[in-house]
């Protein structure tokens, strides 16, 4: 019993799902954006998108976590493509509207804590999109290859191939990163 389908109509089921995953979603977002207000909006957007997509969840295709990361990834990518701005015009829940000064401080701390992850993602920027996404999900978000393959909608074997290629391409770049840790911190 995954309980994912129910989050689309049952507030209690939704609350259980939210409490289980909100920290994970916030960290995922904090690894990709630096603005606490945008992070708040994106967190709201991810859960709204999950509610909308809940009827389409199929247990046999993967775990709720993998499914949610797939949604989060699309939401963040949508923001990057600046399409989210148009969607936000009709947005039902505005994350940033709920923020107090204390909340902003906490979100900033979380964002600061993920600074090295964002640098790592930035360092992968030269990789082809598919390989970058594969490496990002495993190396930055800590997903298993099975979960990451689910997020990307590909088979695990295909995923491993992408991951292997990404690591090969990144090898020289990674060494650079490791050799200058003080740059990563400053």
């Amino acid at each position: 019993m995954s309980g994912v389908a129910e989050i689309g109509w049952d507030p209690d089921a939704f609350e259980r799902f939210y409490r289980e995953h909100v920290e994970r979603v916030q960290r995922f977002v904090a690894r990709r954006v630096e603005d606490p207000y945008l992070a708040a909006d994106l967190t709201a957007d991810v859960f709204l998108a999950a509610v909308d997509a809940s009827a389409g969840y199929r247990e046999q295709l993967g775990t709720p976590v993998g499914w949610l990361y797939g949604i989060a990834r699309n939401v963040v990518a949508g923001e990057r493509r600046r399409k989210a701005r148009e969607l936000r015009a009709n947005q039902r829940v505005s994350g940033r509207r709920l923020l107090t000064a204390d909340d902003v401080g906490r979100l900033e701390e979380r964002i600061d804590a993920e600074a090295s992850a964002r640098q790592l993602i930035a360092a992968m920027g030269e990789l082809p999109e598919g390989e970058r996404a594969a490496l990002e999900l495993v190396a930055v978000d800590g997903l298993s290859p099975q979960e990451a393959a689910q997020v990307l909608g590909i088979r695990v074997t295909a995923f491993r191939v992408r991951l292997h290629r990404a690591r090969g391409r990144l090898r020289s770049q990674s060494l650079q990163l490791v050799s200058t840790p003080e740059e990563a911190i400053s």
Partner: protein
Amino acid sequence: MNTFEDKLLNELRAVVAERPAPIEVRRKRPKRVLIAVAACLTLAAGTAVAVPLIGGEQATSSAYAVTTQADGRVKVQIYRLEDVEGLEKRIRAAGVAADVTLVPVGKYCRRTPTPVRAKFDEKAMMMEFVGDGVTTVANLVLDPKRFRGTTLLLDIAAAEKSKKPGLFLPEQVVSGSYGPCQPIPKPSK
């Protein structure tokens, strides 16, 4: 207890409680609910009132339209939450045993005894939810031949801040007897 995360949860709970979209609730039930949000469908739905299907038997009001299509299936379009008794009569007249209830704003329909889900043909019902951000239309296409012996239970609830039709379908197709709708407040924080 009043952090961003708590406030976001409360807002999202309200969104979930108001959900106007049709939901497939029972995982074991065959998939039969089609959710389509498409501008072209909105256009089609918008013109359906003014341009009834030629050759079809139809019954319309400004709040809904019930049309028997050439293939024998019945198309139900709900535009506003008015006269649900009339809507129920029209659907019944078109050959589908329907029980339509308007659930008060902010409440859910609970029934005791609980309705028993019926085994039924997944082709019996198609549902579309068409929204363009301004108007919302719910469309159902029902096949009377596949509904024999069952009742289509429609608990229609208004979204709290608008007159958009919100359809809650926790027990869509049922058999046997069940209790009357007891509106209970939706869970909230």
